[in-house]
């Protein structure tokens, strides 16, 4: 790594965008056209992009190695219509020799999969036709969600247009209390600034707490930048980043850092020494309360998984809570390891046995219930507690069902008790 000190006063994101637009410097609000390192689509968004791409009548994509296709939303195919959508993606990947196509049995939820496969590195520009593409900022990349038409254009040209975002800085100080994790930091942040508090903006997460936060925790935080309306979230590369990248990314990359004399649009200071696990009540991720103020909420289903909290650290903490316990007789617990690799790791570490012994259902990696797709849909009036990222009306099933969001420890403990509780009530 070599730390660069170009002209004063630019953020990490501004520097990445400037470099890729071939400019010395960019300012918030400026429109730039940049080259992308990776363009991502899934089985819901890629079919629309492929249809649009066909309008170019091209016999090749700009670079087959810079396109990633992950059928994860309705796979394993949930019905005939989704099977046909998945087939459109598979055929496209074959036709255009896209090697980064991940079939079930080898795949994972896109935003857990790409970092794990070494497809994300500091300084990279990544667009994805999926709003949670912002996850990759955890590795010091500029990554943001776009639409299917944007993906179609990028597959043809290798470029995308952006408005340079202003940046909000979030400084977390204090020490992380037990059972409190990256999920709680981001829920707390969204609770403070609201679901449009960072609309069109970049969110820089920093401070002593972030310096010590695991990569899994950072990925969870950046994943939910979009829930505050953010264009991207990021953590600047450090020792934890480089350790994560070792053995995954072999190409040379250039880490980029915000200057010390940056003028942020706003700076937020959060001392989190007394932060409790946070719960986002329906129907919005900013409707956040500490778990002690949750009241007596009985739950019917608990979901542990997704691109937010389906990584190995999440499964470890859930297993720690569930060890030698049984899920409450009235509750259904569904655990989704986020990738095939994490699934295998969980088997090797004995976590899956703990879940099965506790009477949880385990699923192959899929988005499944996170978006109300399949594998755990809610009936009218049911309540779910979930480690996912959205709790909008009807998100997990019937419009009159409800979703509460939390960290994996709270989810596991609540599955045992049958209502929303602090993990210390169980462990």
């Amino acid at each position, binding site marked *: 790594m070599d730390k660069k000190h170009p002209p004063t006063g630019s953020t990490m994101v501004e520097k990445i965008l400037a470099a890729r637009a071939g400019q010395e410097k960019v300012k918030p609000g400026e*429109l730039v056209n940049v080259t992308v390192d990776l363009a991502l689509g899934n089985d*819901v*968004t890629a*079919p*629309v992009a492929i*249809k*649009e791409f066909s*309008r*170019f009548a*091209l016999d090749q994509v700009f670079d087959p190695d810079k396109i990633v296709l992950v059928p994860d*939303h*309705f796979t394993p195919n*949930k*019905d005939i*219509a*989704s099977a046909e*959508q998945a087939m459109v993606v598979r055929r496209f990947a074959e036709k255009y020799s896209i090697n980064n196509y991940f079939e079930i049995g080898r795949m994972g939820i896109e935003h857990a999969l790409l970092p794990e496969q070494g497809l994300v590195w500091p300084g990279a520009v990544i667009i994805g*036709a*999926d*709003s949670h*593409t912002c996850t990759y900022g955890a590795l010091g990349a500029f990554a943001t*969600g*776009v*639409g*299917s*038409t*944007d993906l*179609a*254009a990028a597959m*043809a*040209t290798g470029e995308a*247009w952006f408005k340079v975002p202003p940046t909000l800085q979030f400084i977390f100080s204090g020490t992380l209390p037990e059972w409190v994790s990256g999920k709680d930091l981001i829920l707390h942040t969204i609770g403070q600034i609201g*679901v*449009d508090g960072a*609309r*069109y903006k970049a969110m820089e997460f920093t401070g002593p707490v972030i310096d010590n936060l695991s990569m899994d925790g950072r990925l969870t935080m950046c994943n939910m930048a*979009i829930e505050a*309306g953010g*264009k991207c979230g990021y953590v600047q590369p450090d020792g934890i980043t480089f350790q994560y990248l070792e053995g995954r990314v072999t190409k040379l990359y250039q880490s980029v850092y915000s200057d010390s004399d940056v003028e942020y649009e706003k700076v937020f200071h959060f001392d989190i020494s007394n932060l409790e696990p946070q719960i986002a009540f329906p129907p*919005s991720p900013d409707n956040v309360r500490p778990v002690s103020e949750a009241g007596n909420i009985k739950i019917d289903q608990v979901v542990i998984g997704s691109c937010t909290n389906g990584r190995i650290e999440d499964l470890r903490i859930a297993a720690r809570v569930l060890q030698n316990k049984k899920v409450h007789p009235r509750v259904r617990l569904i655990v989704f390891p986020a990738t095939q690799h994490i699934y295998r790791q969980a088997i090797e570490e004995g976590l899956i046995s703990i879940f099965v012994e506790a009477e949880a259902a385990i699923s192959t990696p899929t988005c499944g219930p996170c*978006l*109300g*797709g399949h594998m755990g849909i809610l009936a009218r009036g049911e309540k779910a507690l979930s480690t996912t990222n*959205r709790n*909008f*009306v*009807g*998100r997990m099933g019937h*419009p009159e069902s409800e979703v509460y969001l939390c960290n994996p420890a709270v989810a596991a403990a609540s599955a045992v008790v049958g209502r929303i509780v602090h993990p210390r009530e169980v462990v």
Partner: protein
Amino acid sequence: MILEGRIWIFGDNIDTDAIIAARYLNTSEPQELAAHLMEDIHPEFPGLVEPGDIIVAGQNFGCGSSREHAPLAIKGAGISCVIARSFARIFYRNAINIGLPILECPDDLSMLQEGRDRLQVDLDEGKITAPGSGLVYRAIPFPPFMQELIGRGGLIEYVKSRLQK
């Protein structure tokens, strides 16, 4: 271009799950999607909406998932324009990219009444008029790059013309 239509009023933070629920994402046909537009928050809406109607909404319209199916469903229902106090950024891009007219209007439109008021929209000038009361509202004009995108009929046509060069 000048549009005129009946208005439908929605609040703040209307997310793309509300615009079109994920259970309908196994198709991308605008007509099929339109049959379920706003269904979870306004079950009768798909049956009531008519071509030319205008959606008037609050802050952060289209937040949440990046699904382009949301503006496609709106377009499929024949909605001529969406006017909101502000839009979530991916929805904003998507609408422009597929050529769905949208306008950001910071003026207070809360006195407008659904089922009674109509609006006239001048897209080029960014002017919104209520023919009943004669009140005029100002929308934020698009930057020139986006005007060019819209003028060419969306991103695909824009890129096509660049690829041909």
